[in-house]
């Protein structure tokens, strides 16, 4: 170990990150919602998340990409502890969250930050910024008023809202969209979390502000060595933010890889379709039609047999894809894909 690494290691120990192994480990997670019952019978389940497993390293940023209705928000809410998983485990810092009670969840929540999609909807309209930022600390039991004040200042400095005094007394509607999103980020950061979940943090913002917020999040991630799950449907912002991408389709992760690998060598037909569907600003786009797989994502109540993408897939192998669910194959190192083409 070099001297530099040693000091880094010492710093991590000092900050309480001496534990090894992944920060978050999801094991065969299933979240099923029961449909309304008719009489005594069961109408069935919506399988929003169906067998998702992955590890999130300390200080790592990953992106989960998928269309609306693919279960990415259910996955995120289960990770945050807002939904109870039907099956499977969510292990945070070597502790199983599925077994935790109210007290345990409170401990967990002070270690995890949540950046919502719609900043205006996420901020209480009747609270000033001061109160919005103070509330999590009151709940977590920080009694000293000075300490709370100090933390608010520090966090507002970090999200670059200057001059701080001017903002403290303001209500959310007095802020621009970018400032509102900064406030949401500040609130997520105020307990000093080591893990942040960002649910489409920039999809409601203007193009010019979008980059600013992405850069801010990236900066925070680097300075605080945060682990981040970035949920999005926009592939073009992913490479600016995360190291790995997981592609989700109909409740399952179909491809997991490093960002550059996935962008340059997409192995799952669905990933390829998503990449083809994303445009770069180029006037030549107007001259050609896009290749789009036919149909729409399947119902999660009765997902198709075998591979869930097979009814839309142009490379479907009859007798295999529509019968057996594909396991994870490894077309190259660190690149998992659930598709029979790579058998």
């Amino acid at each position, binding site marked *: 170990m070099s001297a530099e690494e040693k000091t880094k290691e010492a710093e991590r120990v000092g900050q309480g990150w001496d534990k090894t192994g992944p920060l978050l480990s999801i094991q065969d997670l299933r979240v099923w919602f029961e449909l309304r019952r008719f009489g005594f019978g069961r109408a069935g389940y919506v399988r929003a998340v169906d067998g998702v497993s992955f590890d999130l390293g300390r200080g790592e940023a990953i992106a989960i990409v998928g*269309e*609306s209705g693919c279960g990415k928000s259910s996955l995120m809410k289960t990770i945050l502890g807002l939904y109870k998983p039907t099956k499977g485990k969510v292990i945070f810092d070597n502790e199983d969250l599925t077994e935790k009670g109210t007290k345990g969840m409170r401990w967990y929540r002070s270690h995890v930050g949540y950046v919502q999609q719609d900043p205006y909807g996420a901020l209480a309209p009747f609270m000033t910024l001061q109160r919005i930022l103070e509330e999590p600390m009151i709940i977590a039991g920080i009694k000293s008023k000075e300490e709370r004040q100090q933390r608010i200042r520090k966090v507002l400095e970090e999200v670059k809202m200057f001059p701080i005094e001017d903002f403290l007394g303001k209500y959310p509607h007095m802020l*621009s*969209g*970018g400032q509102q999103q900064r406030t949401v980020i500040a609130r997520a950061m105020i307990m000093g979390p080591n893990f942040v979940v960002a649910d489409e943090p920039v999809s409601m913002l*203007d*193009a*010019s*502000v*979008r*980059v*600013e917020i*992405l*850069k801010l999040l990236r900066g925070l991630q680097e300075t605080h060595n945060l682990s981040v799950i970035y949920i999005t*449907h*926009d*592939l*073009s*912002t992913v*490479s*600016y933010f995360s190291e790995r991408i997981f592609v989700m389709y109909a409740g399952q992760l179909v491809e997991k890889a490093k960002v550059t690998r996935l*962008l*340059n060598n997409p192995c799952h037909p669905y990933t390829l*379709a*998503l*990449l*083809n*569907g*994303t*445009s*770069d*600003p*180029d*006037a030549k*786009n*107007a001259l050609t*039609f*896009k290749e*789009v*797989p036919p149909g*729409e994502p399947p119902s999660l109540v009765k997902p198709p047999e075998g591979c869930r993408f097979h009814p839309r897939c142009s490379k479907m192998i009859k007798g295999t894809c529509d019968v057996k669910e594909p396991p994870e194959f490894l077309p190259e190192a660190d690149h998992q894909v659930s598709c029979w083409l790579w058998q």
Partner: protein
Amino acid sequence: MADKKLLRIKDLVLHFRTQHGPVQAVDGVSLDLDYNRAVVVLGESGCGKTTLAKAILRLLPRNVEKYSGEVCLGGKDVMPMADEEFRLSVRWAAISMVPQAAMNALNPVLRVGDQILEPAIIHLGMKKGDALQLALKMFQHVGVPADFIGRYPFELSGGMRQRVAIAMALITSPSLIILDEPTSALDVLTQANIFNVLKRIKKELGTSFILITHDIATSSELADDVAIMYAGQMVETGDAMRFFPNPLHPYAQKLMASVPRLRGEKNLEFIVGQPPSLVNPPKGCRFAERCPQRFGKCDQEPPVIEKDGRTVKCWLYN
């Protein structure tokens, strides 16, 4: 045809009266559009894009302070027309619109078929049976299965609802359709699908489009021409082939630099500051405060400069 241009807007002004004073939402906008072309109006939210669309269609709220300028449609100025005449001969007959969040713009208690018939019955004076045939033809154009005609909007997915809204705009075969953020609430693949539909319509029916959006990357899917709006004014217009690789106005340059690219290693930039208030916009160039290339002249109103068929409202090109 009397005029080569389908639409010629000159100095269009629309100000609203508010408690704080007049809001100059659209302030002297000029825009030309040829037959069978698509122009993309790009800009940040609050720059007056949607208001421009409403001003063209004369869909005005009550608190209008000032509404003036010229809107020539096929060589004829439609601004002096009386409201009733405008309603009968322009709105939906010659120009129709797909409103923002069209997914929610459909009436939830009417079957989609009945909704898209309405313009045909009112504007073309059709009988219901004929209109139904026409509606089915439109459904084919936008790729909605024929049996969806008896369904209610909530039974359709977002992409299908968007297609129905486009069919409703198409049914009177207008020469111009205004699309207000047609895909901003949709998924990537659905977006690509909708743009395929729009491209096909443009090719088969020869319709012109005004596409209003803030999504620069997907706007390039349809753009023949590009118009950049900032704080109620048009700062740059030009054809897409030359605009995308080489924007002229500093605002357009900054905007293009902020677009994330799929495989781009390029460093993204953002524009510092916020757009000015439209109640009391700054004198001179409205972008000056945020402009990295600002110089002495910028506190005077910049002229619109023509440069190889493109226009740019900036002192740099004088």
